[in-house]
């Protein structure tokens, strides 16, 4: 009997594509034979816009790329500019940056854990739990920066203003809540048979493939490659903290979930250590030029974002604006492996695999 493959359009308005992402699936029955991803629905030209602005103004656009892990983007950008202008960041500013970045990682992973449940058909429950826990951290960010989403709080050289007086106590109050919330989500999802059946052995990516696709972050670690920029290319002050790097064994969707759960625990550990060591002092270097002007140089600076290596490649030809600013966004690079992971799986699993990449479309399209 003659059979015909069917093309199915998924997205850009599909709720489980995590934004405006479209994939054209070629299916044979329930099996996915081919995937053609279409991106660009959320392209705002952040790279080009950054070229039109001086080094301080462009900070607002860094938040708008990966809008679930904004502090990491700001960190990468500020590090690039600091390297270019040869600015030393004060101790206190570095510590506050690390605390906020790690809290941001926790918040971002809570978002993932919540959305992961939805992708596996766990309708709404895990999502609301994830949001609830994220909200505690979001409140801290709001008290510190004044904004809920687009913080623009880091500046080349340090921070825009100091944290409020009760900051340390507030974070210490929230960490146990985050731990409790993580335990709830852990109990809800980890041992659950339905989650197991849906995610084990699905979307497997071997370590070799993961490296050759250029994956980074939890995806790479789930495949069994122990690689974390915080430890292997230490930036900021991450070499002063004790933490473990969780690694998966199978490289499937379930491992990616487990790696992220463990990463939240490690981030809580880092925040606790950073709070203990938090020094007093200035948050901006004393000799800060009013107008930032850079020499001719090419700079690459990368941070371990919540989704992987977030890098800024900055070319300066002198003056107060970058000549070229390239954002190496982890979501985009990780998404490139989608086709390899999806082919041969069921249509329903395509959703789970896409969810496990944890894409942020603002970061993919920029």
């Amino acid at each position: 009997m003659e059979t015909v493959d069917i093309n199915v359009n998924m997205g850009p308005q599909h709720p489980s594509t995590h934004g405006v992402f479209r994939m054209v699936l070629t299916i044979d029955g329930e099996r996915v034979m081919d995937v053609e991803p279409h991106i660009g629905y959320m392209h705002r030209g952040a790279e080009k816009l950054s070229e039109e602005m001086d080094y301080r103004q462009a900070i607002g656009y860094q938040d708008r790329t990966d809008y679930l892990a904004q502090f990491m983007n700001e960190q990468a950008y500020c590090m690039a500019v600091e390297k270019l202008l040869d600015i030393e960041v004060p101790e206190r500013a570095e510590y506050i940056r690390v605390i906020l970045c790690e809290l941001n990682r926790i918040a971002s992973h809570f978002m993932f854990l919540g959305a992961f449940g939805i992708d596996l058909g766990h309708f709404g429950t895990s999502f609301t739990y994830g949001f609830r826990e994220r909200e505690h951290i979001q409140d801290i960010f709001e008290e510190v920066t004044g904004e809920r989403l687009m913080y623009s709080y880091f500046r080349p050289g340090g921070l825009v203003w100091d944290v409020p007086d009760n900051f340390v106590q507030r974070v210490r109050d929230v960490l146990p809540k985050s731990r409790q919330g993580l335990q709830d989500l852990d109990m809800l999802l980890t041992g659950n048979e339905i989650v197991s059946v849906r995610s084990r052995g699905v979307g497997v990516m071997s370590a070799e493939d993961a490296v050759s696709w250029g994956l980074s972050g939890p995806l790479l670690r789930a495949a069994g490659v122990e690689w974390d920029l915080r430890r292997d290319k230490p930036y900021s002050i991450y070499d002063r903290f004790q933490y473990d790097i969780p690694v998966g064994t199978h490289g499937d969707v379930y491992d990616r979930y487990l790696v992220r759960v463990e990463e939240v625990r490690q981030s809580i550990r880092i925040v606790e250590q950073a709070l203990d060591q938090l020094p007093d002092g200035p948050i901006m270097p004393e000799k800060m030029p009013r107008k930032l002007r850079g020499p001719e140089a090419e700079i690459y600076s990368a941070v371990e974002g919540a989704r992987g290596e977030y890098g800024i490649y900055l070319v300066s030809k002198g003056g107060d604006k970058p000549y070229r600013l390239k954002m190496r966004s982890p979501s985009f690079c990780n998404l490139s492996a989608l086709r390899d992971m999806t082919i041969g799986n069921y249509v329903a699993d395509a959703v789970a695999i896409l969810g496990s990449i944890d894409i942020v479309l603002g970061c993919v399209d920029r």
Partner: protein
Amino acid sequence: MLGILKSMYVTMNAMMRKPVTIHYPDHHRDVPQRDRAFPILLWDKEVDEPFCTGCHACERACPVECMTVVMKDNPLHADGKSERRKIVDQFWIDYGRCMRCNICVEVCNFEAIAMNNTWAGHELSKFDRNDLVLDLDQLLSQHKQGKIDAWVPE
């Protein structure tokens, strides 16, 4: 089976908890002191004129070019009542363009502009986009009437 029972235990526990949400239009949560809504201008109550001298610093620093400032000679200075030689004549901010990055507050030399930290700064739904372009009187009115305790970082 055990895993599913554990999941049920978590969801059952949630049933006993107090809700964490609030009914928004009826109840408002407190916004923190540093809350950043849209920029407003501040009013110097001692001299009874705006702090803003119309120096264009914020206009030049704005990444999205949402501001327009016009400067004039200060009539109160000619009478000897004010120390400000120049003062703002016209000021427009397009709230539709503003991306709330706080850079205008940072660059201001006279602490004349601040981010609105009240709920009035957030609830700005309008039927016409042109209504989101605020002029000098509208920008000043909130602080002039004492409805706002603006937070300006030092």
